[in-house]
C-alpha cells in the first residue's frame, strides 16, 4: 500500500518539531471531545443533510455494524470506508456499546478520543490530533494504516469544508458510518461507471441517461466526501492517453515509412500475392546486406587506397602498359573491363604492397585480406541469423490457425482507409489473400490416384536430371573449347563470348522446360516453387562450377606464364641498370612504369571474369524483362484491337512474374559477388547499383506488364528456402576463395600481397612486426598448418550454431502449440459451464438491435425484445431481474437500475457492507449496484422516496 505509506510520511514531515504530550489526555474520555468530533463531521457532511437525517434513526444499530465491519474488512481498498467507521460516533449513546467492542477497536479509538479534548476550535484541534495519532502509531504499529487513512481523510475534510462555523450548530445532521461507507462505495461505483461508460454497448440515449445520473450523483456526494479533484485528473489522464495513442500511431507510421520500398512491395503484394512479394522482400534484404558489404569494402579498402595510396601512373601496377595505351580508352576496351578499367581501383592488381599508407599508417594489405574474410564472415552471420529468426517466426504465428478464413473475412478490412487508391489496393489484397487461402484449401481436399501421381513424379524427375546432365555437359564442352580459343587471336565476337552466351541461353531455356515438366507432378504451387528453385539451382550450380574450373585452368596457366615473366623482369631490370652503370657513373633513371615488363596478374583476370559475368547477367535480366514482359504486354495490349484472335486471353497473353527464376538469379548473382569481391572490390559497388535499379525496374515491370499467377498461392511466411539457397551458395563460393587465398601464390608484381609467398603471410608479418614477440611465437605454432583448418572448424561451428538455433525455435513453437491446445481445451470446458457469462452481452446486443415493427422476418426472441423493453425478453433475463440481487453480472432494466442506484444512499443501513466480492469481470458490461449485495429486505425500504 504505497499510498498509505506516503501519507504517513507526509504527516510525519508536517508534524516534525511540534511536541504534544499525549499522556495528559490519555484515557480521559469525555463527551465534549466526542461531541466536538461529531460536530466536525456534521460540517463536513453538510451537503447531504437528507441522508444524514435518515440515519439518526438507525444509530442504535451501529455498534454491531462497527463490529462486523472490523472483522470483515480486511481489504486495503476499503480504507476509505473503513476510516469512516469509528468516527461518526455519538458519545452518550454509544458508550455502552463501545464497551463491548474488541480490543482492537478500543485501541483504535483512543487517539480520537484523546485529541478531541484539546480545543473547541477545530483548527487547533486538528493538528494535535494528527500528532497524537502519529505518536500512537509509533507506539503500536498495529493500526497504522487505519489511522493513516483517518488522518488523510480528516485533512481533506478540513480543506473542503470552508464554512465551518455556520453548520457546527446543527446537532442532528450527522451520518452513520454505514451510510458513509455506502455512499463512498456508491460514489466509487458511479465514478467507475462514468469512466467505463464508453465501454458499454448501449445506445447513446441510454448511455446519456446513465451518465447524467451517475454524474449528478457523483457531483452531489463527491464534494461531501472530499474528492473533488478526481475529475480533472481523470480528464487529464484521458487526454494524455489519447495523445499517447496518437503519438504511438504516428510513430508506427513513421517507422513504416522508414522501411524502404515498403509501399511498393505492399502494392505488388496486394495485386500479385505474397509469393511475388516474397521475391521483392528478398531483394530488399539482399540490398541491405550488400549495402553493408559495400560500406566495409569501400570504407576500408577502396577509399583509403584512393585517398592515401600512390596515384595512377606512379608504379607499373597502376599504369596501363605502353602496348595497350593506344586503345585503353576505347569504349569496347572499357566495356570488356580492359584498359583503364583494368588498372583502376576496381581490381585487385591496382593495390600496392606497401605495408602502411598515408599519415595514419593504414595497413592496407592487411585491411584488404581482413575485408575479404570479413565479407564472408558478415554474410554468414547475417544469413544464419535471419534464418534462425525466420524459423522462430514461422513457428509462432498462426499460419495454420483454426480461424484462417474467419480472420480473413472479419478482420482484414482496415477501417482507417479513406483513400480510394488505398482502398483499391486493399480490395485487391483481400481478394488475393482469399485466393491464396482457397488454393491451399483445395490442395488439402484433393486426393486422387496416388500411384499415377507417383509415377509421374518419378518420370518428371528423370527428365529433369537428364536435361540437367545435358546442360552440364554442354557447359563443360564450351569451356574446354574456349580454352583452345584462348591461345588463338583470330576470333570473332561469338567465339570470344561463347561461354557467357551458352550459359545465358541455358538460363533462358531450362527454367521454362523444368516448369513444364513439373506440371506433371501436380504439386501444390508452393511446393512446386521449391522444387523448381532446387532444380534451377542445380543447373546454375553446374554452370557456376564449370565456370570455376575453367577459371582455375586459366589461373594455373597464368601462374606458369608468370614464373617465366618474373625471371624475365628481373633479368630486364638488371640489364637496365647494368647498361646505365656501364655508361655513366650517375644513378640510372628509373624505368618508365608503362614500359616495365609485368606478369599476367591472375587475380585481376579472375576479377574481370566475375565482373563481366555479373554485368552480362544484369544485361540479360533487364533485356529479358524489357522484351519478354514489357514488349509482350505492349503488343498484346495494342495489337489486340486488330488481331484475329483474342491476344489477351489467347496465346501470348501477358507474362507472369517468374518467381523462381528471379530468386535464383538473385542468389546466383550474390554467389558471383561473394566469389569475385576479393579480386574485384568494385564488384560490390556494381552489385549495389544493380540491386537498387532492379528494385525499381522490376517493380515497375511487374505492375505494368505482368498479370497475377493463375493460382495465387501464399508464400511460406519465412522465406527460409531462399535463405537456405543463399547459405548453400555462400558456402560454395567460400570454398574457391579460401582455396586461392590459402594455396595459390599471389602475383609477384601486382596486388597488395605481391612479394609474399602466400596471401595470408600478411597476417604473419603483421603479427611479427606490430605485436609483441610472444604473440608471434604462439601464432607461428598455431598457424603453420595453414589457416584452412580453423576455417573449416569455423564453418562447422557455424553449422552447429544454426542447427541449434533452429532446434530451439522448433522447441519454442512446440511449446506454443501445446499452450494453444491447452487453451482450446479449457475454453471448450468453459463454454459448456459458462453459458451465462455471455448472456449479459447477448442481452445488450439485443437491446442494440433496431426497434422494428414486426415483420415476420424477425425471429421470436427479437420480437420479444423489441416490442417492450421493460418486459423480460427472454426467460433467463426475467429470472435475472427477479433475482437481481443475487446475480452479479446480470443486467437489469435500465430504469429500474437507475432507480436502485439513486435510492441506495437513503436506505436504512442495518449492516455494514461485507468484504467486496470479486469484482466484475472486465469483459462484462454491467452496472453493479453496490447496495444490492448481500443485503436483503432493508434495502427496499427506502426505495421510491423522492429526492429533495
Amino acid at each position: 500500500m504505497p499510498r498509505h505509506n506516503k501519507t504517513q510520511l507526509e504527516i510525519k514531515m508536517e508534524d516534525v518539531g511540534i511536541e504534544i504530550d499525549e499522556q495528559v489526555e490519555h484515557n480521559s474520555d469525555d463527551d465534549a471531545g466526542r461531541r466536538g468530533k461529531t460536530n466536525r463531521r456534521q460540517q463536513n457532511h453538510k451537503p447531504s443533510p437528507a441522508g444524514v437525517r435518515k440515519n439518526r434513526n438507525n444509530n442504535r444499530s451501529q455498534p454491531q455494524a462497527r463490529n462486523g465491519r472490523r472483522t470483515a474488512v480486511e481489504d486495503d481498498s476499503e480504507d476509505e470506508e473503513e476510516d469512516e467507521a469509528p468516527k461518526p460516533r455519538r458519545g452518550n449513546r454509544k458508550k455502552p456499546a463501545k464497551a463491548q467492542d474488541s480490543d482492537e477497536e478500543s485501541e483504535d479509538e483512543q487517539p480520537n478520543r484523546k485529541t478531541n479534548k484539546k480545543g473547541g476550535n477545530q483548527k487547533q484541534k486538528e493538528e494535535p490530533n494528527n500528532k497524537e495519532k502519529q505518536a500512537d502509531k509509533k507506539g503500536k504499529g498495529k493500526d497504522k494504516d487505519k489511522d493513516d487513512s483517518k488522518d488523510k481523510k480528516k485533512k481533506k475534510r478540513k480543506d473542503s469544508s470552508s464554512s465551518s462555523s455556520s453548520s457546527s450548530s446543527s446537532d442532528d445532521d450527522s451520518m452513520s458510518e454505514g451510510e458513509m461507507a455506502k455512499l463512498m462505495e456508491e460514489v466509487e461505483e458511479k465514478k467507475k461507471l462514468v469512466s467505463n461508460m464508453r465501454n458499454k454497448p448501449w445506445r447513446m440515449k441510454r448511455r446519456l441517461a446513465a451518465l447524467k445520473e451517475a454524474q449528478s450523483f457523483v457531483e452531489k456526494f463527491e464534494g461531501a466526501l472530499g474528492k473533488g479533484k478526481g475529475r480533472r485528473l481523470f480528464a487529464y489522464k484521458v487526454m494524455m492517453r489519447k495523445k499517447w495513442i496518437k503519438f504511438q500511431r504516428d510513430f508506427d507510421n513513421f517507422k513504416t515509412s522508414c522501411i524502404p520500398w515498403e509501399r511498393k512491395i505492399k502494392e505488388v503484394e496486394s495485386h500479385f500475392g505474397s509469393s511475388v512479394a516474397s521475391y521483392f522482400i528478398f531483394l530488399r534484404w539482399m540490398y541491405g546486406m550488400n549495402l553493408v558489404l559495400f560500406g566495409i569494402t569501400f570504407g576500408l579498402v577502396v577509399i583509403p587506397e584512393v585517398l592515401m595510396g600512390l596515384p595512377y601512373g606512379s608504379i607499373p601496377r597502376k599504369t596501363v602498359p605502353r602496348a595497350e595505351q593506344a586503345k585503353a580508352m576505347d569504349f569496347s576496351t572499357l566495356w570488356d573491363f580492359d584498359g583503364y578499367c583494368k588498372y583502376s581501383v576496381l581490381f585487385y592488381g591496382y593495390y600496392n604492397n606497401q605495408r602502411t599508407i598515408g599519415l595514419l599508417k593504414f595497413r592496407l594489405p592487411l585491411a584488404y585480406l581482413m575485408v575479404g574474410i570479413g565479407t564472408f564472415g558478415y554474410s554468414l552471420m547475417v544469413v544464419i541469423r535471419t534464418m534462425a529468426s525466420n524459423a522462430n517466426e514461422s513457428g509462432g504465428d498462426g499460419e495454420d490457425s483454426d480461424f484462417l478464413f474467419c480472420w480473413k473475412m472479419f478482420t482484414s478490412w482496415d477501417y482507417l482507409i479513406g483513400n480510394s487508391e488505398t482502398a483499391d489496393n486493399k480490395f485487391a489484397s483481400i481478394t488475393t489473400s482469399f485466393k491464396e487461402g482457397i488454393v491451399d484449401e483445395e490442395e488439402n481436399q484433393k486426393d486422387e490416384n496416388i500411384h499415377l501421381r507417383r509415377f509421374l513424379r518419378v518420370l518428371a524427375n528423370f527428365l529433369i536430371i537428364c536435361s540437367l546432365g545435358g546442360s552440364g555437359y554442354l557447359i563443360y564442352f564450351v569451356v574446354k573449347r574456349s580454352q583452345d580459343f584462348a591461345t588463338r587471336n583470330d576470333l570473332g565476337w561469338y567465339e570470344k563470348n561463347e561461354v557467357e552466351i551458352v550459359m545465358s541461353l541455358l538460363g533462358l531455356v531450362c527454367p521454362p522446360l523444368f516448369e513444364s515438366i513439373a506440371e506433371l507432378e501436380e504439386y501444390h504451387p508452393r511446393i512446386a516453387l521449391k522444387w523448381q528453385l532446387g532444380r534451377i539451382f542445380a543447373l546454375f550450380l553446374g554452370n557456376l562450377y564449370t565456370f570455376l574450373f575453367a577459371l582455375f585452368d586459366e589461373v594455373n596457366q597464368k601462374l606458369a606464364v608468370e614464373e617465366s615473366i618474373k625471371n624475365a623482369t628481373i633479368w630486364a631490370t638488371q640489364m637496365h641498370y647494368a647498361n646505365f652503370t656501364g655508361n655513366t657513373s650517375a644513378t640510372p633513371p628509373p624505368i618508365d612504369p608503362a614500359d616495365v615488363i609485368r606478369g599476367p596478374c591472375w587475380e585481376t583476370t579472375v576479377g574481370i571474369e566475375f565482373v563481366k559475368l555479373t554485368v552480362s547477367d544484369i544485361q540479360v535480366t533487364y533485356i529479358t524483362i524489357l522484351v519478354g514482359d514489357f514488349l509482350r504486354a505492349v503488343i498484346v495490349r495494342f495489337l489486340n484491337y486488330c488481331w484475329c484472335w483474342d491476344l489477351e486471353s489467347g496465346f501470348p497473353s501477358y507474362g507472369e512474374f517468374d518467381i523462381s527464376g528471379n530468386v535464383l538469379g538473385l542468389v546466383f548473382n550474390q554467389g558471383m559477388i561473394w566469389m569475385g569481391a576479393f579480386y574485384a572490390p568494385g564488384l560490390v559497388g556494381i552489385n549495389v547499383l544493380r540491386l537498387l535499379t532492379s528494385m525499381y525496374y522490376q517493380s515497375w515491370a511487374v505492375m505494368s506488364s505482368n498479370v497475377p499467377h493463375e493460382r495465387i498461392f501464399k508464400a511460406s511466411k519465412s522465406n527460409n528456402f531462399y535463405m537456405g539457397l543463399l547459405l548453400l551458395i555462400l558456402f560454395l563460393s567460400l570454398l574457391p576463395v579460401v582455396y586461392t587465398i590459402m594455396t595459390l601464390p599471389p602475383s609477384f608484381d601486382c596486388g597488395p600481397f605481391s612479394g609474399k609467398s602466400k596471401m595470408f603471410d600478411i597476417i604473419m608479418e603483421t603479427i611479427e612486426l606490430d605485436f609483441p614477440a610472444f604473440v608471434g611465437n604462439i601464432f607461428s605454432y598455431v598457424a603453420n598448418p595453414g589457416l584452412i583448418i580453423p576455417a573449416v572448424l569455423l564453418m562447422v561451428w557455424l553449422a552447429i550454431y544454426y542447427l541449434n538455433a533452429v532446434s530451439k525455435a522448433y522447441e519454442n513453437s512446440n511449446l506454443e502449440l501445446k499452450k494453444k491446445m491447452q487453451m482450446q481445451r479449457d475454453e471448450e470446458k468453459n463454454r459448456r459451464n459458462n453459458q451465462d457469462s455471455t448472456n449479459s452481452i447477448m442481452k445488450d446486443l439485443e437491446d442494440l438491435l433496431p426497434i422494428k415493427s414486426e415483420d415476420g422476418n424477425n425471429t421470436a426472441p427479437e420480437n420479444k425484445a423489441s416490442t417492450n423493453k421493460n418486459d423480460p425478453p427472454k426467460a433467463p433475463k426475467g429470472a435475472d431481474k427477479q433475482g437481481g440481487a443475487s446475480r452479479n453480472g446480470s443486467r437489469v432494466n435500465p430504469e429500474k437500475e437507475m432507480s436502485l442506484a439513486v435510492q441506495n444512499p437513503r436506505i436504512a443501513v442495518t449492516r455494514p457492507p461485507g468484504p467486496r466480492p470479486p469484482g466484475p469481470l472486465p469483459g462484462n458490461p454491467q452496472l453493479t449496484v453496490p447496495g444490492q449485495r448481500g443485503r436483503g429486505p432493508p434495502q427496499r425500504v427506502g426505495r421510491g422516496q423522492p429526492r429533495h
Partner: protein
Amino acid sequence: MFLLVFCRLHSRYHELAPNLVPMDYTNDPDCKVPMQLIINMPELTENPFKERIVESFSEAGDGNLSFNDFVDMFSVLSEMAPRELKAIYAFKIYDFNTDNFICKSDLEQTLNKLTREELTPEEVNLVCEKVIEEADLDGDGKLAFADFENMISRAPDFLR
C-alpha cells in the same frame, strides 16, 4: 475538453446536412441525417460495409442517424473503444439480416463486399463453409455472438 470534442463532432454532424440539423437543441428537436449523407463522409466512403455500419448504429435500423447515434458511431469506431465493444458492433455490422446470427447468407454478402465480387460462386461457397466450419462451435450452422467473440478475440489483426 470533452465539450470541445463534442462541439467538433456536432459541427461535423451539422455540416452533413446544414438544413436538417439545428444548431441549438434547446427544445430537443428530433432530427436525423439520412444514410446517404452519412456514408459519403470521408471516413466511410471507401468502406465496403458503410451501409451496414450506419444501419447498425441507427436506432431504428434504417440508416438514418440522430446525433446520439452519430456520437455513438464515432465513439465505437474510435481507437479508445475497447475490443469487446468493437466485437459487439462488428458482430452487428456483419449480421446483415439482423437475426442475431451470422448465417451463410451474411457471410456471402460480407465476402462479396470485401472482394468486390471477384470470386466465383464456388469459391465464395467454399470460403463461407470454411468460415462456419472454423468458428461454429455449437454446430448449428451459423455463428452466434459467442462463436464470433471467441473467434475474434484471438485475431491478431482485430485492433482497428
